[in-house]
Structure formats: structure tokens, C-alpha cells
């Protein structure tokens, strides 16, 4: 380990994570400039750069000093916008490190998957460029330590995702409640996604500015945390700021009842889009809560925590029940995200180190597992040309590899102990049982029970989904069709996720080892406990 | 002399011009009304100049500039009116309608 560190010393002082953030953007430019016909070259460029990014992020993870996980490390602070005292301030701590790795990792897989599996209109050039831009946004959000920088990266993901959904998305027509005419799914979903998130973040920006002016005219997150934990933000002002931050982050998470863009976006998005959306984009919201909302506005966090807990509990139950009613495979998985992110938020709302740790591992696990679920369902939708579970069935017979992985992933998703999903769920409940002293314990325990019931419902809909999709005799319509089971590219994209699911499940220290100190320090600083 | 009557009269001239702009259908007539308004401003400037006893004659000089600009505006306005008219004529409307107008 020492040797490696020495070799890559030059990557400290922020160069390493800067590269992790901007290398994808650069390669997106390169991809954009390559001629459209050089498809292989384009794909290889994208893959290569994402791989290098991933390796760089691993090097960063190796250089990271885990004994000081609560400090922001390997970062830098360069002047950016002087007039408003906003800086290019970056750095990672134990909380952001796993998220960063997750992001770079999933992107590699998404690119591998996209090698051969692009819906119409194929155009790998566009898709690759968008994925890489998206990666910059995601990575940047996780390393940004300046509110404005954070905001820019946070928003940077919108455009690529909008186009991904809009161009490669589901082209079928659907009716939409409240509108007379049928609309194309992708168009409706893409604009809904865009408007919803922008709505949230526009107000979030106002909140950032409020902090800037009430604080010491700084956007620096570490400085604001110092201010916030020493009680600089109080009263109506703090309530308002937390409200808008909540709006911005909760839309992204998404928390009930701001989730309605999610099922549509997921259903319409192309496979890679769904994967990236579920695996990482949703995390930007919950990460925002942990990174910004809680430590900077601890007092408000305590005031809002019961409400967040209740909403999370509703989200868990609501998401699961909605899943039970779905006939569309991808929509089901999308609603399952609502439930799972409910656990994440429940963990966060407990404001304890247990709960927040749970939230972070929950985020990672949800990223890995739901990402895989979307990979699988997307691939199946591509193979069968339908997502209607009424028509599917006997998938285990028709596509044994996909089916087997689907079963595995469903098990992971329902929180099976020993697999990644378990920790987030169980620890979130653990956190919610004994929230931060001073919080209304009845509300939290009720939420915990609701969450626990949610696990049953989760098991219910996932198993039911498996029964309808995977088991039984195949429908007659597939008898004569030639159906392709998972190919090498797909397996190459999926197997790492499977392995990661098991690894985290068996050895959660992979995540907790990085997060725990940081979370404890956060909780101690912000809430004195 | 009290300055008041002049100023009130200028205000009146201004409003009369406004009225003209609003009710006149013919663009040339509207341009006439605008001249009234500008004239009201001219009166204002000159009256103020006199009222203040401005040694630099700034009010009067301003008035001269306004008159110059007004002349230019009239030129521009009439050019546009002319173009409009010519265009309408080429637009195949029969003579009767033209005359009626």
C-alpha cells in the first residue's frame, strides 16, 4: 500500500479527484469530435476513459487515510468565482468516498452494457458522450465542497439524462391522467423529470444563497458546517432554508409525495439511463441531505426529522403497495426505488450515526442492486419487446442466465441478509428505533414498524414479480421466437454487480469502514451525540 | 408672469396629443398628434429655462435638439407610412376600397 501511495503522490492535492471528475467530460468532448462512423473507436474511447476514471478513483480510495475519515482529504481549494467567494473546493471524506466509487464503477458497467445494447436510434456516439457527461456531474457532486460547485454538478446531470430519456426512451404512446391526448412515454417522462428536478433545485439554490448571506458570505461547505454546528442559523430563516433544501433534495431522492416523476422516468428511460438514474442520480438527493442539510442546519434537521420519518414510512409502504399493483416490470422496479429510498431517508431522519450509516450503505446497496435490476429488466424488455408481466413468464426456461440473475437480484432487493440490501434496511430500522434523543420517539417507532411491515410487502411484490416473470411455463407466444439470453457484454456488466452485492452483504466494513468515523463525527458535531 | 399657466398648458397639450394618438385612425394624423406632444415638452423646457433664468440656456438648447430629433422622426415615420401604403397598394386591393379608405 505504501508503495502505491508513493507512486501516485502527485494525485494528491486535488489532482486525483479533479481528474476523476473531469476526465469523463474531456473524453465526452473527444467522443463528440470523433466521426460518427468510427463506432468502435468511440466505444473504446468511452470505455477506456471510464475505466481510467474508475482506476483513478480506486487510487484515490487507496490514498485516502481511513484513520481520518472524518476529514476532507485529497482535495484542494482553488479560486473560482471571486466576486461571490465561491471556490473550486473539492475533497472527499468517508461519506463521499463510497459514493464516488459507486459512481465511477457503475459508469464503467453502463458503458460496457451500451457496447451492444442501445435502443433506437442507436448512435453510440451520442449515448457515450451523454453517459460521460453524466459521470462528470455525478462524480462532481460527490466531491464538491462548495455549495455553488455542488449545485452546478447537481444540475449538470439533468441535461444528459433528459436527452437519454427523450431520445433513446420508450416510444410507445400512453395516456396521461389530466391530459386529453395520448403522449409518447419518453417525451412525457423526460420533461416531467426535468421540470420536477429543476423545480426542486431552483429553490435549493435560493436556500444556498440564504446560507451564504446569513453565514460569513461563504459557500464553503466545511466552513458552513462549522458555522451551522455552532448555531449560526436559527429561527424562521433556518426553517425556510431547510424547507427549500428539503424540496431540492427530496425531489431527487425522491420522497413521497414528490416521487411521481420517478416511475415515469424509469419506465421510459433506456436501460442504461434507468441504471444510472436509479444507481446514482437518486443518491445525489440523499447525499445532499447528509452532506449539506443535516450538518449545516442541525437544529432544523431535528425539527424536520419526524416529518421526514413519516414521509419515509409512507414512502416505504406506498411504494411497496404501488408495486403490487403494477403490471409493467420496469415500473414495478421504479416504485420499488421509492420504497428503498424511503429506508434511506428513514435512516437519515433518525439523525443517529447508526441511521446515517445505514442510509449510506443503503444508498450504495440500492445503487448496486436496483442498478442491476434495471439492467436485467431493460435487457428483458429488449428481448421480449414487452414489459408486461402478464405476457412474460417462464423466463427461467427461456433465458436461464437472465432469469437466475433476476432471482438473485430480487432476493438482494428484498433485503436478504448476507446481501447488500439487508444492511440498509435493517440498520435504518435500528436507527429509527432509537432516534436522536429529543426526537419524538413514538413517531419514529411507528415509522420503524411501518418500515418493518414494508419489508414484508417488499418481499411480497418481488416474489410475486418473480413468480409472474421467472417461474411457470412460458407463454405460447414465445415458443417459436428466438430469444437471446444474456451475452458476454451483458454478463460483463452484471457479474461485477452481483459480486459487489455479495461482498458488501458479507463484509459491510467495505462501506462502514469508510463511513463510520465520518458519520460519527458528523453526528457529534451537529447534534452533540 | 407666473410659470404655472404655461406648465399646465403644456400638460394639456401633452394630453391632447395623447388623445390624438389614441383616437386617430390615420397614421399621418397620429404623427401630427405626436408633434403636439413633443411641442408640449418644448414648452416645458423653454418655460423652465425662463423660470430658472438659466444662464447656460440649457432648456432652450435641449428644445432645439428636440426639434431636430422630431424632424428626423417625422422623416422616418413618413418613410414607414409610405412603405406601408405602397405595400398595401401592391397587395391587390380594388380601387373602391382604396378610395373609401
Amino acid at each position, binding site marked *: 500500500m505504501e508503495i502505491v501511495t508513493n507512486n501516485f503522490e502527485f494525485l494528491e492535492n486535488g489532482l486525483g479527484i479533479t481528474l476523476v471528475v473531469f476526465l469523463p467530460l474531456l473524453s465526452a468532448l473527444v467522443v463528440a469530435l470523433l466521426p460518427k462512423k468510427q463506432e468502435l473507436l468511440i466505444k473504446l474511447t468511452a470505455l477506456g476513459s471510464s475505466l481510467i476514471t474508475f482506476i483513478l478513483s480506486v487510487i484515490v480510495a487507496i490514498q485516502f487515510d481511513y484513520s481520518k475519515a472524518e476529514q476532507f482529504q485529497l482535495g484542494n481549494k482553488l479560486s473560482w468565482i471571486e466576486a461571490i467567494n465561491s471556490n473550486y473546493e473539492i475533497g472527499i471524506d468517508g461519506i463521499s468516498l463510497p459514493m464516488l466509487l459507486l459512481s465511477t464503477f457503475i459508469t464503467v458497467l453502463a458503458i460496457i452494457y451500451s457496447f451492444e445494447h442501445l435502443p433506437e436510434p442507436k448512435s453510440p456516439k451520442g449515448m457515450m458522450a451523454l453517459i460521460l457527461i453524466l459521470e462528470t456531474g455525478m462524480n462532481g457532486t460527490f466531491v464538491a465542497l462548495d455549495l455553488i460547485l455542488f449545485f452546478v454538478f447537481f444540475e449538470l446531470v439533468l441535461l444528459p439524462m433528459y436527452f437519454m430519456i427523450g431520445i433513446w426512451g420508450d416510444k410507445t404512446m400512453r395516456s396521461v391522467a389530466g391530459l386529453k391526448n395520448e403522449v409518447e412515454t419518453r417525451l412525457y417522462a423526460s420533461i416531467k423529470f426535468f421540470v420536477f428536478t429543476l423545480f426542486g433545485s431552483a429553490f435549493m439554490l435560493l436556500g444556498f444563497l440564504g446560507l451564504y448571506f446569513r453565514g460569513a458570505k461563504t459557500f464553503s461547505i466545511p466552513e458552513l458546517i462549522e458555522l451551522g454546528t455552532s448555531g449560526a442559523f436559527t429561527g424562521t430563516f433556518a426553517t425556510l432554508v431547510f424547507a427549500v433544501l428539503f424540496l431540492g433534495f427530496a425531489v431527487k431522492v425522491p420522497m413521497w409525495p414528490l416521487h411521481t416523476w420517478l416511475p415515469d422516468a424509469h419506465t421510459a428511460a433506456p436501460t442504461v439511463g434507468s441504471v444510472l438514474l436509479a444507481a446514482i442520480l437518486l443518491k445525489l438527493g440523499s447525499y445532499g441531505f447528509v452532506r449539506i442539510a443535516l450538518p449545516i442546519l442541525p437544529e432544523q434537521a431535528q425539527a424536520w426529522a419526524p416529518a421526514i420519518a413519516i414521509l419515509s414510512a409512507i414512502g416505504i409502504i406506498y411504494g411497496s403497495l404501488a408495486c403490487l399493483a403494477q403490471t409493467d416490470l420496469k415500473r414495478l422496479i421504479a416504485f420499488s426505488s421509492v420504497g428503498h429510498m424511503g429506508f434511506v431517508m428513514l435512516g437519515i431522519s433518525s439523525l443517529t450515526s447508526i441511521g446515517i450509516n445505514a442510509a449510506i450503505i443503503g444508498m450504495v446497496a440500492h445503487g448496486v442492486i436496483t442498478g442491476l435490476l434495471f439492467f436485467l429488466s431493460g435487457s428483458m424488455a429488449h428481448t421480449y419487446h414487452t414489459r408486461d408481466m402478464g405476457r412474460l413468464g417462464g423466463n427461467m426456461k427461456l433465458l436461464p442466465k437472465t432469469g437466475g440473475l433476476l432471482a438473485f437480484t430480487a432476493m438482494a432487493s428484498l433485503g436478504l441478509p448476507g446481501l447488500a440490501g439487508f444492511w440498509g434496511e435493517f440498520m435504518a430500522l435500528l436507527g429509527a428505533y432509537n432516534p436522536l434523543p429529543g426526537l419524538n420517539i413514538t413517531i419514529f417507532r411507528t415509522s420503524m414498524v411501518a418500515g418493518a411491515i414494508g419489508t414484508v410487502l417488499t418481499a411480497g411484490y418481488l416474489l410475486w414479480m418473480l413468480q409472474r416473470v421467472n417461474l411457470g411455463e412460458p407463454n405460447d407466444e414465445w415458443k417459436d421466437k428466438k430469444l437471446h439470453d444474456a451475452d458476454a457484454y451483458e454478463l460483463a456488466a452484471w457479474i461485477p454487480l452481483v459480486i459487489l452485492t455479495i461482498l458488501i452483504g458479507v463484509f459491510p466494513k467495505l462501506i462502514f469502514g469508510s463511513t463510520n468515523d465520518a458519520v460519527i463525527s458528523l453526528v457529534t458535531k451537529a447534534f452533540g451525540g | 408672469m407666473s410659470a404655472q399657466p404655461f406648465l399646465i398648458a403644456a400638460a*394639456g397639450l401633452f394630453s391632447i396629443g395623447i388623445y390624438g394618438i389614441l383616437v386617430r385612425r390615420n397614421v399621418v394624423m397620429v404623427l401630427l398628434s405626436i408633434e403636439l406632444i413633443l411641442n408640449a415638452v418644448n*414648452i416645458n423646457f423653454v418655460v423652465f*429655462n425662463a423660470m430658472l433664468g438659466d444662464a447656460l440656456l440649457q432648456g432652450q438648447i435641449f428644445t432645439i435638439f428636440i*426639434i431636430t*430629433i422630431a424632424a428626423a422622426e417625422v422623416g422616418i415615420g413618413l418613410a414607414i407610412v409610405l412603405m406601408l401604403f405602397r405595400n398595401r397598394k401592391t397587395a391587390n386591393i380594388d380601387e373602391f376600397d382604396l378610395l373609401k379608405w
Partner: protein
Amino acid sequence: MEALDIISYFLLLGLLLVSVKVVTTSNVIHAAISLVFTLAITAATFLLLSAEFVALVIVLVYIGAVIVLFLFGIMITRAPLGQNAELDNDKNKSLALVVSLSIFVIFSYVMFNTFDSQIIVTTGTSTELLGEILLSRFVFPFEVVSFVLLAALIGGITLARQDNALVDENQI
């Protein structure tokens, strides 16, 4: 200064009356002529206020040139020269009255409020002084305004010129 006051009242009354005629007459020529009178009275008023040069400019530029332009305009656009009931937009009249009266009320309120006791002392000005100031202190706007005139000239000619080459340009 009684006499001057009385003269000024007469002049101003006449000014208003003639200008009302400009906007109410249904004969275009009458309107133009009324404008001439309005401007003439204005020039007279300026003389009263000892702004001789400005009065001269009004007579020369306005009455001499601008009104001729207007008459040209009236003729070229073949506005009916006699009485014309359609000259006014009757629909607008009441509203226009309200608007113009409101403006009058507001303006005169301000005038009453701010300049109620101001007295005009006429001293007489030398045109020479005016010219000096114009070409020293105000030489820059003086230069600039020539660009306005030139632009109006060139642009006006271009627009007003008969032009056969023009075809449908909707595609731009």
C-alpha cells in the same frame, strides 16, 4: 407685468383650442393647418419667454419643413381631403378620453404641487450666447444628432423608395 400675463393667457388658451382642433377635426387638411397654428402660437409664446432663437427654429423647421412633409404624407397616402367620418376610431374615444384626462390630471397635479409659486423673469437672451454654448458645451450631442439626421435620411429614402426588385421574403 399684467399685460404680459393677459397675453400669455390668451396665447395659451389659443394654443389649447387649436391643438384640440388638431386631434378632433375630421378633415385631414384642417388638422394639418391647425398644427401650423399650434406651432405658430408656440413660437409666439417662446418669444414671450424671450426664447427668440427657439421660436425662429420652430417657425423655420416645423412650419417651414415638417408641415410640408406632413402635407406630402397626407397626399401621397391619398387620405381623403374632405370631411371623413372614419378618421377617428370611435371605439377608442371614451377610453382615450379617460387616459388623456388622467395624464393631464397627474401632470398638472405635479405642476401645481411643485412649481406653484414660480415666477418667470424675462431677461432676453442673445442668440450669440446660445450658439456659443451649443458649439462648446454641447458640441458632442450636436455632432451626434447629425448622425441621427443622416440615418433618418438614408433609411427614410431606402424605405420610401419605389422598389421593383422586392419579392416575397417570407422565408427570411
